[in-house]
């Protein structure tokens, strides 16, 4: 097998350290959710960034991507990249939909006709 274990104790230590890091990051993200970072969007960014760090740790160490053949990491990355493309282009549509009128529309302004004046008596 390609993954002949050279040093199981060292490997187990890596796994344990990864778990501890993940638990610490979980505590951080829960704590951070109680702090208001300005706008709501900032909280989302912080939370998702921490989540991505955790996900990367799981992928690299628990799922062995760090020491595995590169093709597996490429496949994993492709899944996320294409999901990102789907999200990005859909947002491109949704976030730029403010114009309900065409750019070249000239709104019709009707000047009210003046009230007929009383006919002048000759």
């Amino acid at each position, binding site marked *: 097998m390609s993954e002949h274990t050279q040093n199981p104790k060292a490997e187990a230590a890596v796994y344990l350290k990864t778990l501890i890091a993940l638990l610490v990051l979980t505590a951080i993200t829960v704590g951070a959710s109680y702090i208001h970072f300005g706008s709501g969007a900032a909280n989302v960014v912080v939370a998702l960034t921490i989540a991505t760090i955790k996900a990367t740790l799981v992928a690299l160490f628990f799922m062995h991507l760090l020491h595995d053949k590169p093709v597996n990491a490429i496949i*994993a990355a492709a899944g996320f990249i294409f999901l990102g493309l789907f999200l990005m282009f859909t947002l491109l549509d949704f976030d730029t939909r403010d114009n309900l009128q065409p750019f070249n529309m000239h709104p019709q302004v009707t000047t009210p006709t003046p009230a007929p004046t009383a006919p002048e008596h000759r």
Partner: protein
Amino acid sequence: MSTSPVDLQHDPHGHGDDGHGHDDPHHQHHFTTMEQQFDTSKIGMWLFLATEVLLFGGLFVGFGMMQARFPEQFKEAHEHLQRPLGALNTVVLLISSWTMVMGVLSARTNQRKKLVIYLLITILCACIFLGVKYFEYSHKYEEGLLPGHYYSHHGDKIPTVNGANGYATFFSFYFMMTGLHGIHILVGIVLLAWIAVRGNRGEFNSSYYTPVDLVGLYWHLVDLIWIYLFPLYYLIS
């Protein structure tokens, strides 16, 4: 690369001299070596995981779009979710991921008993997760926080306008995403139990532990999805 021909007609299993023990009962005939078979299985599993990422990802995209449509309702609806329970479930799944990878290591180092124990703890963690979820779901049911037209909660700040109930949509997504995730946990429990039974029978060792590794990868993906679900549903307010 070796060009020594293998006579396939008389040796249809093509074992030849691969140096890895051609008597392995798990060696499939179309692979030349067990290593090739293992590497191929891994690629196959990663491809499947990529499809899962896109499957769940679609739900994340839908959630994101609906969040943009009903920002206030979604914000308020978030408050019904209990953060401590979500955090507990996160911790439970992370621990189960650790026990899983330790199980794979045990299989790879011929430690049969440890493998079974780690797998059983993983299953236990999965059951705890589902138990907490059941508790959460029943709470939602009591409060009327149900998906779609079953939504019957009172006391929401923003009234429903023209049939558009952002709260109902939020809980539709909540149940869809945690539900689909829960189904994957259930399937995972079945797979873990199957691996545990086979492991107990001594089927896995340092030269053949592929099923343990593959189930492990699946289990880590289930954890990965929750790593994203947790902040999105429980931590954003």
